[in-house]
């Protein structure tokens, strides 16, 4: 397990008086296996280990200079954990956190939820609606998944639970639904409109074109990719494909109440640069939080 990998690494470094490059390499080998077990993508793992090694080598020189004659302020194993934690947090942080990009004053801010099948888009749409409503915003939910059986019903029930109206139009296309919903939101002076779209494969060109059409028709300020924290090595390819097509503005990581380490999130953030904005931490509608990089780093490191 990831915890074991780090514990082994730390043990190798405990009691080491003078840290050598060989010591660091040995510790990093243990970490490599456990990062891969946590679903961190292969190349991201390599880059992470490279940076931690670099950091530690830099620190070793500094430690050696400091310890001339006096006791070291930090032991090698503590240094190692600190370097890993700092590096992970840096990789997953972003300057504006959970903040959504707002529309110019007087028009509704649009949030478009996209992603693979079954990741939690519909549930997260309702959770976000609740969160924003509690901030005093007037929100409209839009049932733009016209394909999955009872998808509109699902969002309608969730909307009722959080007291947010749900717009649906059974005999139109998803693009029309979004366009009409936006027009209605402008008339009703809504602050935020949230489009819940159907799950789809990134390789489905017809359905990806549909998302592109919704984007060009409505010009959303926010396009969030919803991803299950248990996703594997495929996460990066998926995020990249959605990003290349749409220009994602953020990620919502769901099912963090499970025991998945969530290492795939690292790759998405690290390689595409898309900020992770939200964390889904349960099935009920109050279970959406701003994403915390330090919490995630501890989770990945165990």
């Amino acid at each position, binding site marked *: 397990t990831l915890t074991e990998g780090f514990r082994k690494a730390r043990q190798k470094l405990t009691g080491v008086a003078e840290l050598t490059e060989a010591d660091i390499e040995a510790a990093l080998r243990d970490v490599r*296996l*456990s990062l*891969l*077990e*946590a*679903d961190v*993508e*292969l190349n991201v793992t390599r880059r992470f280990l490279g940076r931690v090694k670099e950091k530690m080598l830099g620190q070793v020189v500094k430690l050696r200079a400091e310890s001339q004659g006096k006791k070291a302020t930090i032991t090698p194993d503590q240094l190692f954990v600190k370097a890993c934690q700092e590096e992970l947090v840096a990789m997953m942080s972003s300057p504006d956190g959970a903040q959504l990009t707002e529309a110019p004053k007087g028009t509704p801010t649009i949030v478009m939820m996209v992603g*693979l*099948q*079954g*990741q*939690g888009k519909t549930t997260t749409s309702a959770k976000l609606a609740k969160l924003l409503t509690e901030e005093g915003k007037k929100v409209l939910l839009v049932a733009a998944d016209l*394909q*999955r*059986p*009872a*998808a509109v*019903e*699902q969002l*309608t*029930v*969730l909307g009722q*639970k959080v007291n947010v109206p749900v717009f649906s139009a059974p005999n139109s296309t998803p693009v029309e639904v979004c366009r009409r919903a936006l027009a209605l939101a402008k008339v009703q002076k809504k602050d935020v409109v949230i489009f819940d779209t159907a799950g789809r*494969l*990134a*390789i489905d060109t017809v359905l990806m074109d549909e998302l592109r059409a919704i984007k060009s028709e409505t010009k959303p300020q926010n396009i969030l990719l919803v991803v*299950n924290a*248990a*996703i*594997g*090595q*495929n*996460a990066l*390819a*998926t995020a990249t494909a959605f990003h290349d097509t749409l220009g994602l503005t953020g990620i919502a990581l769901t*099912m963090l*109440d*499970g*025991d*998945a*380490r969530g*290492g*795939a999130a690292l790759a998405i953030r690290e390689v595409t640069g898309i900020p992770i904005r939200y964390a889904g931490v349960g*099935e009920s509608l109050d279970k959406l939080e701003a994403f915390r990089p330090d919490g995630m780093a501890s989770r990945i490191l165990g």
Partner: protein
Amino acid sequence: FSGKKEIDAALLEDIEETLLTGDVGAATTKRLVDALRDRLDRNDLADSERVWEALREDSRRILSVDSPGFGSAAKQSPLVILMVGVNGAGKTTTTAKLAGRYKQAGQKVLLAAADTFRAAAVQQLEMWGQRVGVTVHKAKDGAKPSAVVYEAVARGVAEGFDVVIADTAGRLQNKAPLMEELRKTRDAAGKACPGAPHEVLLVLDAVTGQNALSQAKEFREALDVTGVVLTKLDGTAKGGVILAVVDEFKLPVRFIGVGEKADDLRDFDTAEFIEALFS
């Protein structure tokens, strides 16, 4: 000019990368690669072609679980199948696909809408039931999942259904009370029909990473899972984690999901799967 050592090392690195990016995981990858390295060191594999062939053969061996025919545990009707798994894996859709298959084979199928928790879960299964032409048994409002399953299985026995498939709510494997609820649901099937459920299918999403091992472990410990369905293989994810799952838990992969329509269900084909994994 590269010596044999260098060529072998490069080839094994290539193989390691293929396995890891396919979600096969560090432990299973190491075992497979170590075995190949041993054989290379003994000059047992003449060229890279042989090495890949050996890898395919070792992987095939892992996936070939000796198991009785699907549903053969049911000595008389109805065959009772319980669908379980984490949230969003594809349980409801797979229930519908499986129902459609039996229906097309002339069997009388009853579905149990035992997800009494999630918004519009019952409606979702009912719509599917209409699409594939099978009856859906649902409960009065607020009934427990175990009660729905008990009623449905009892009805299956009483009204001469050939197959009863129970769709359950998604749940994360680390939630003890939810796993306990699932245990009670399984027991309810047995109370209505001795020997039921004859099949407990764990539905796994092919994009899942190493967490699939924890899913398999916990669901199996709670319920005695009898098989796996690997869904969403129509995507780009290879589902390689199934190698580790089968290696550790010896569960047969019965079906794969290859799309969102009723007929997007296939029997698991080991050779085809391996081919795709290493393509």
